[in-house]
């Protein structure tokens, strides 16, 4: 089975082991220790770590298309945000009549805008299964239409990157408008519960953190399965010599479309798990700058390794948390600096350094073997 292939890889097993250990450790430290204990992990930290895991999944999705297909998407924030909005709509509908205006169906912002009834596209989001399906389908559909048009006309490289930026920017402007029916610049917020669990409770937070870990693990395995398949080799082939790949009979534009849609769906899942943990989704997630930041995480972690993307996302966001606490205004400069330093000093990212050290160790091992 192609999906089980990653479990034969040492690197994937190691990745999953570390992920499971980390999630378990955080869970134990959170549940078993009293708050006075210096090793205690607070509910706030659990939420923060859950957020990092969502970012890590998003970075894996970007690495899949950038690292292996060579498509530098500067618009993956849009897919992340769409998944987030789908989840946000579900959470809004869960509020029911507990909102400020007490309307049993209409979310507060619609009452505020004097809307009489629910717009058609809000129907069905009171049902979890439907909303969760939309988490996949909304970003997937956007990626399908966008990718179909772009890849069919063989738009690649810088041009594609620019259009993806334009796409996310246009969506940001659209979602800012109140008439769109997504809460305008306030977005969707003031959620109560998810699947009947209170979002304010520590147990729910922990559950969401664990769910993010599981989603990252599954997303990682799915991407590895694609990458380790013959299709993955076709991806690399088309990244490096597109015309040659077509000449061998592969429909490169279809391969690109398929992988792009899968990646967008993963980004959507990441966004959907992110929203209940931060408690809000608003148009700022569509900001072009955010999509560029994601690319920086991947570049820093190391392209075309997948685990590098995870390392990069977690490290940069940890740094961001620390940095914005100390010097909020300087973060963008720090990020820019980080990017420059990494491209100059670590062209293959942190993953490249790890691979190099492993190789050196192997070589010194083999030299010890008597010839």
């Amino acid at each position, binding site marked *: 089975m*192609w999906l089980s292939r990653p479990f034969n890889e040492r690197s994937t097993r190691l990745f999953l082991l570390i992920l499971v250990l980390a999630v378990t450790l955080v869970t134990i430290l959170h549940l078993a220790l009293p708050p006075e204990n210096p090793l205690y992990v607070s509910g706030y930290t659990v939420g923060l770590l859950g957020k990092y895991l969502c970012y890590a999944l998003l970075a894996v999705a970007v690495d899949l298309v950038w690292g292996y297909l060579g498509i530098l998407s500067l618009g993956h924030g849009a897919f992340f945000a769409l998944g987030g909005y789908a989840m946000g709509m579900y959470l809004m509908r869960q509020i029911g009549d507990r909102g400020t205006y007490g309307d049993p169906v209409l979310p507060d912002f619609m009452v505020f805008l004097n809307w009489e009834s629910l717009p058609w596209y809000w129907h069905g989001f009171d049902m979890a299964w439907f909303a969760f399906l939309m988490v996949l389908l909304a970003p997937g559909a956007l990626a399908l239409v966008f990718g179909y048009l772009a890849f069919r006309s*063989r*738009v*690649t*490289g*810088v*041009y594609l990157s620019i259009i993806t930026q334009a796409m996310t920017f246009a969506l940001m402007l659209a979602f800012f408008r109140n008439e769109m029916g997504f809460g305008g610049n306030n977005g969707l917020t003031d959620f109560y519960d998810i699947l009947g669990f209170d979002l304010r409770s520590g147990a729910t937070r922990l559950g969401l953190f664990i769910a993010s870990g599981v989603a990252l693990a599954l997303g990682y395995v799915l991407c590895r399965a*694609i990458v380790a*398949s*013959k*299709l993955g*080799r*076709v991806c*690399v*082939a088309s*990244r*490096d*010599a*597109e*015309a*040659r*790949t*077509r*000449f*061998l*009979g*592969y*429909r490169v534009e*279809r*391969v690109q479309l*398929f992988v792009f849609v899968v990646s967008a769906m993963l980004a959507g899942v990441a966004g959907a798990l992110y929203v209940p943990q931060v408690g809000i989704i608003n148009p700022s997630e569509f900001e072009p700058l955010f999509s560029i930041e994601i690319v920086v995480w991947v570049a820093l972690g190391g392209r075309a390794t997948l685990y590098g993307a995870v390392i990069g996302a977690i490290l940069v966001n940890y740094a961001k948390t620390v940095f914005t606490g100390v010097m909020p205004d300087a973060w963008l400069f720090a990020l820019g600096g980080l990017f420059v330093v990494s491209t100059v000093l670590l062209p293959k990212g942190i993953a490249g350094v790890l691979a190099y050290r492993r190789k050196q160790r192997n070589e010194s091992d083999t030299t010890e073997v008597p010839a």
Partner: protein
Amino acid sequence: MNLWQSMARRDRVFEFLAPAISPVDVRHGPILYMEDVTVSFDGFRAIDNLNLTIDDGELRCIIGPNGAGKTTMMDIITGKTRPDTGDVWFGSRHDLLTMNEPEIASLGIGRKFQKPTVFEALTVFENLELAMTADKRVIPTLTARLTGDVRDRIEEVLTMIQLADQQAQPAGILSHGQKQWLEIGMLLMQRPRLLLVDEPVAGMTEQEMERTAELLTSLAGKQSVVVVEHDMGFVRSIARTVTVLHQGSVLAEGSMDQVQSDPRVIEVYLGESEEAA
């Protein structure tokens, strides 16, 4: 690749999906038959009343000065260029002029271009794997497994192109000559009946040339091979029959010695070297 390049591309998408095309019939004659073929570009006759036949299993060398029409001839056979007049048949059953590039390729005509392009980031083995005839749609490619048959075929080709020891290495670190062999190997994965090879030894060392000669001669018999080459030493080392092309038509044909002593050939080549001098 930038937008302009991608918009200006001339090669088309190839599909080897339909194995249903009937096999080549060579019972009653040659595998390739070209008669009175003419192509003009803006009034200039690049191919002018060309007649050429290649027998099944033959190894044929085509030589000729720059601009003689050698590459254009290959373009016609592979369907990239349509002749103005003439006939081109593959075996006695397939009229190549009624087929498009992918159809011709799936009939079993493989072509090696002058510049080698292998997938540098993939291993030698993987390069051959991708070149294998298979269902190349997205989902079948995703779920494809490396069956014993595929593995056997890849190993067979690896031995033929003498890259068995390098099979796990990325193609990017191969020497120029090895890349050329790998590319020939990628063609062989599709089990072609006719191989068209354009200037295979350009830029090769003496030793690499020798091994290329071995490879091409070993291929002949099982498949027909047409080699276009400028290097006379190389042509001499592999040729049984040589065809000299000049201004779009056949000037002479025969063994290397016959051709080299032909006064018209001498004139063409001398004329050329006098111009160059």
